[in-house]
């Protein structure tokens, strides 16, 4: 029976069951009590010896990766559901579903201590498939959804957290804030401080620049056509390109489609 306890218990069980009367009287005779304890003690005695043999460090130093780690965390269910064979990055034993007992939003605190870093893979949190997706989404949501954004003419890209906005207008404003200074710095060749010019009209084709994005199918698309949350669910990266270049792209490349 795979129920998370060691095989030694199966040796105990037959004897124990014999000792217990069929009726509901569970008050076992003193002898049996001692037997049970004796058995438990000796089992742990053996355990002691085992641990002494395996322990490499001085007493008090925990070295549980070498010790007799529990035989299995398997429930009667398919083992793969609960104990994955994913590679472990650290020397901890295989992660167990729901252990340690902390809420999902308290996991990965150490790894996300740099502000709102994108979630490090959720592989160190193992859950059955039906929950994993939802959890992963939750963790992604909670940590911020960052996509790269580049601007033509600016060699350094930025990253923008799309979870921080709920509309195209706000995104457009954010893009302006991100790149206004950088763009001005690029244009400035004479060493004089050039006036920073606002980047406007990103969404309606009227400005000098237009916002486009690459979606999950690899296509390059104009930003603004679909409802915001649909956009957020398909966008992979953003790009600010010169509005005049759009027609060049249409004429030049077969791979890039721009749909109106």
């Amino acid at each position, binding site marked *: 029976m795979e129920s998370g306890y060691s095989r030694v218990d199966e040796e105990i069980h037959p004897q124990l069951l014999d000792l217990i009367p069929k009726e509901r009287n569970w008050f076992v005779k003193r002898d049996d009590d001692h037997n049970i304890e004796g058995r438990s003690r000796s089992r*742990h005695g053996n355990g002691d010896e085992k641990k002494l043999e395996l322990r490499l460090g001085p007493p008090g130093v925990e070295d549980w990766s070498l010790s007799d780690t529990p035989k299995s965390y398997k429930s009667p269910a398919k083992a793969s559901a609960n104990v994955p064979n994913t590679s472990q990055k650290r020397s901890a034993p295989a992660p167990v579903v729901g252990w340690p007992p902390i809420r999902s939003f308290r996991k990965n605190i150490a790894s996300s201590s740099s502000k709102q870093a994108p979630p490090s893979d959720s592989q160190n949190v193992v859950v059955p498939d039906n929950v994993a997706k939802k959890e992963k989404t939750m963790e992604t949501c909670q940590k911020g959804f960052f996509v790269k954004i580049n601007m033509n003419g600016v060699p350094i890209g930025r990253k923008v957290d799309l979870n921080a906005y709920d509309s195209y207008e706000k995104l457009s404003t954010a893009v302006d804030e991100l790149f206004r200074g950088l763009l001005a710095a690029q244009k400035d060749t004479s060493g004089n401080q050039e006036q920073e010019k606002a980047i406007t009209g990103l969404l309606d084709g009227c400005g000098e620049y237009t916002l486009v994005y690459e979606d999950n199918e690899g296509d390059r698309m104009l930003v603004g056509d679909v409802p915001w949350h649909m956009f957020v669910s398909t966008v992979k990266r953003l790009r600010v390109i010169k509005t005049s270049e759009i027609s060049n792209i249409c004429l030049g490349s077969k791979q890039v489609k721009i749909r109106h």
Partner: protein
Amino acid sequence: MAYSFPEEVLEHVFSFLSSEKDRNAVSLVCKSWYEMERWCRRRIFVGNCYAVNPKIMIRRFPEVKSVELKGKPHFADFNLVPEGWGGYAYPWIVEIARGYPWLEEIRLKRMVVTDESLELISKSFKNFKVLVLSSCEGFSTDGLAAIAANCRNLRVLELRECEVEDLSGHWLSHFPDSFTSLESLNMGCLNSEVSFSALERLVARSPNLKTLRLNRAVPLEKLPTLLQLAPQLVELGTGSYSAEIRSDLCSSLLEAFSRCKNLKGLSGFWDVVPAYLPAFYSMCPRLTFLNLSYATTQSPDLTKIVSQCHNLQRLWVLDYIEDTGLNALSMSCKDLQELRVFPSDPFVADANVLLTEQGLVSVSEGCPKLQSVLYFCRQFSNSALTTIAKNRPNLTTFRLCILEPRAPDYLTFEPLDSGFGSIVQHCKNLRRLSLSGLLTDRVFQHIGTHAKKLDMLSIAFAGDSDLGLHYVLSGCESLRKLEIRDCPFGDKALLANADKLETMRSLWMSSCAVSFGACKVLGQKMPGLNVEVIDERENLDSIPHNSPVEKLYIYRTVAGERFDMPHFVRTMGKDNRRFK
């Protein structure tokens, strides 16, 4: 009875009884008291939404103003309850909307709450005042928008650790300009950014606002503005506590905090930039509650903070505080009643964090009022447990989680039986206990013998045999909630103590050794129980009867078996029901 008081007098007397236990007792005295009490009961608490159905509740208590419901079992918090299990609020809301049009308060915990439910709430109760959703899921910010738009007299809107489908922050803007009654707003678990100007205006027109818990998306730069508008705040949850270091922000934060003379509780502190921590030092001596469990700042900063919080009663913190910080806590915070220490990096074997059993031992020595402990750490010993037990016999809640399952006493390699034994022996008022580490049946013998006031027990990776479970079920007289995972407990103990289960709210067992056959027998013999097997394997019907179930949830009920279950949940043994 000819000599009893007139009804009005009795009603008046009963109105002073607020505890539901007292009211339940009163209602059992005689028929006339039962009748009188049911008409003047105003608050209902239903600990398991499947234990009773709403029609029964409304029929018995016609004039209720406040309803509190709990749904899923506690282990749902740790993903042990599969999606779709149940706990739906909607059927309750529908009945309550019909039966209690003057309802003022709804509190739900671990329930599935849909946008339809929220809309129904917002439109059904003219005098609705309080909505608290804890660990709920199933709704989006659209539902919140309905609440904001329609609940004219709302005082409290608290979302505690809920999973919300965050479509946008626009919901907050739905509070009308005429809405000024807000006293408490907790949106800490939401992700998207709300319109800051809408938030600002809401705070400005809410003179009674006492509790404000912001979400992470509210930047630190905006905090001073909000505090200036609400200097009367008693509880504040900051948003992200991070910004580029600017002296003007430092000083405006400092100034804003110092104006909040009533501030007693602080939380939030995501993304802490330590340079901004001193901004609230002036508040520390007044604080009674401090939640730093998201503050990823190191021991020296944390120590500095707690050392100034001389009136602190409750502290939640990460293990970054380390033993040294806890030692400082034990010397500075003599009023401490509750301590929770969470793991910063629970999935590594070695975390480079110097938090050991010693930290908790220090606090148990130095804090005479310590009652409630939740402690995650990597090592413990019997001697430490015994010391803690002797230091603090007044403990009522003791939840120890040693991160490695079945970890023995790190000094002696023995099981931790005697240590936990000391806890139950000395702490005679212990109501809640969570065990961890290497444990044999012995510890359950101690628990069954001594833990007579124990109300809730959580067990994982422990015990040797059915005897362990038997000790608990037969010995713990006050036990109402028992949750067990990965223990070798099987049919015998369960069947032998079937009667006990009817005195409890619920029993959860997962990855144990209880068979389908035993569940069926139990369900057949005990009509007052629902014995639900949760098992996601295919071909469930072809699994032999003596094979163990994946998960088992048993609860007492007067509502009969439920019919809103997914395919992987079955109520066992109900084909021979004698009642409808």
